[in-house]
């Protein structure tokens, strides 16, 4: 039952590369926020944040090499966060809707 864990030891170069990408993304998100993108600016900010999250998770947290179960746990956790946000929004986004004829 215990699948043996193969230790993947990433090179220093990989980690440095990821760090550089993360720093660039930080500068990018800051600069992008000074450009008027309308409603899209939230999307841009979140998209960059999600990319950064993926870099940290996949490389620094070794999710790349993790078991399927770990990946399932992570995806599940994010799904539950989505449930919390989206179902709460079903209320707040439809406040005041009274339906057809009003």
């Amino acid at each position, binding site marked *: *039952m*215990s699948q043996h864990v193969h230790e993947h030891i990433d090179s220093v170069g990989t980690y440095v590369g990821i760090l550089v990408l993360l720093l660039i993304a930080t500068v990018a998100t800051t600069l992008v926020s000074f450009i008027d993108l309308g409603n899209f600016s939230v999307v841009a900010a979140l998209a960059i944040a999600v990319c950064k999250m993926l870099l940290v998770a996949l490389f620094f947290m070794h999710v790349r090499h993790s078991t399927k*179960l770990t990946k399932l746990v992570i995806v*599940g*956790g994010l799904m*539950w966060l989505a*449930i*919390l946000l989206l*179902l*709460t929004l*079903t*209320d*707040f986004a*439809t*406040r*005041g*809707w*009274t*339906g057809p004829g009003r």
Partner: protein
Amino acid sequence: MNTAVAVEEKENYLNNGYGLKSWLLTKDHKRIAVLYFITISIFFAIGGTFASLIRAELLTPPGDLVSSETYNKLFTMHGVIMVFFFLIPSIPATMGNFFLPMMIGARDLAFPRVNLLSWYLLIAGGILAIYAMIAGGVDTGWTFYTPYSTTYSNTYVITTALGIFVAGFSSILTGLNFIVTVHRMRAPGMTWFRMPLFVWANYATGLIQVLGTPVIAVTLVLVFCERVFHIGIFDPQLGGDPILFQHLFWFYSHPAVYIMVLPGMGVISELISTFSRKAVFGYGFVAFSSVAIAVIGFLVWGHHLFVSGQSLYAGLVFSFLSYFVAIPSAIKVFNWTATLYKGSISFATPMLYAFGFIGLFTIGGLTGLFVASLGFDVHVTDTYFVIAHFHYVMVGGTIMAYMGGLHYWWPKMTGRMYPEGWAKLSALIIFVGFNFTFFPQFILGYVGMPRRYHAYPDEYQVLHVLSTAGATVLALGYLMPAVYFLWSLRYGEIASANPWGATGLEWQTPSPPPTHNFEHIPVVTHDAYDYTTVPREVMEVGR
């Protein structure tokens, strides 16, 4: 008697250390389970005392026994203690802790020290809650609705919230421990679909504990901040929205209902199988229905908010989703009933509780369909109808299962049998008392009696008197086991390793079990509930 004790002096988890330290610093999941059992029994007694006082007050229409301040504190503390300090830890922390590792053939949970820590957290939370009660109590209702709890109540809200916060982490850690244990600690051959259904149920419960509890923790942190710093998150004066609190609160507290009842369903699966000597009908369906309930349970919380000012469309969405919980619940009930078909049915006390559970849970579940129906719920929400409904699920369901499981596993935990005659009598008294207490409340609710009322109009008195009378019977029913269980510790018949002729791994080791559960880690070669594996002589000795 004495000779029997002498003969029985094998090493087991109970006699391998007697000092206080050997208990308070134990890492043995069985001892921790016993610690939990003692703790929550005390909380049950406290919560029960509050309930009795509430019923006594409601015997007469005017508020004459206690003042309205006191009454409000009584029902609040009854709810807080029963929900957070009894029902949520009840089955998982006692029987789950004790038997989940044994049932999958493990020596212990994955994280024994975390397990002990979670008991201490419950104690710490409990002490805070009890301190709050002694210091002056709290009167917000166990739901802590804002802005009453944040701005208007001048009782011990912060201390109580802190207590629940701490106890919440106890629950999280228990769930986490169970999940990891089930994934990583199964004995050789113990595949997922050979696991007893009790393990499945506790696994599903663990998912809810891990995913839901943090949300109420952070909500209580916000309530705390609102009271101390007046941050405005739930304050309409600053543009905050009190309904947001209700969303966050019920995001946890609705699934919490399943934290309470799922392990009970797991117990019932074990009982029904053992006492009809049949594999549970539709094993796979019952197993998956536990997980399905855990998942769907997170999608329905808005049905507590139908009249609260939630939007019309959110109401429709949540009502619709609520009915999906009915499918896995129905699957369970039908499969249990079908398990009896062509079985060999024994009427031992645990089985009586199992019958009681199925009956009462059926009524509790079906009235759940009533209150999920929008137009109907508008009328009965916040009335005694709802009180009756959730007591049928919580008391008629969870506590029936808890009592059934306790009788079932008592010989394994203590090495002694309980007195069967008394136990049957008390099971009967509890069933009758329960129905007398709570059935009239359905009618009361539909007629219009709102919940949390200290005084009420005269015409509701007859039903209230019935309910209080039933509660008296019920209290008697709960006192009897307390007495005969204690009695059995010393005078009970010595229990064999497998007094019921059951199949689980926990029955293949002596009663009480040795510290490391098994002499040798078992190798599992059969599906769960395969009664052909039980030796004939065990069945003959079995009662």
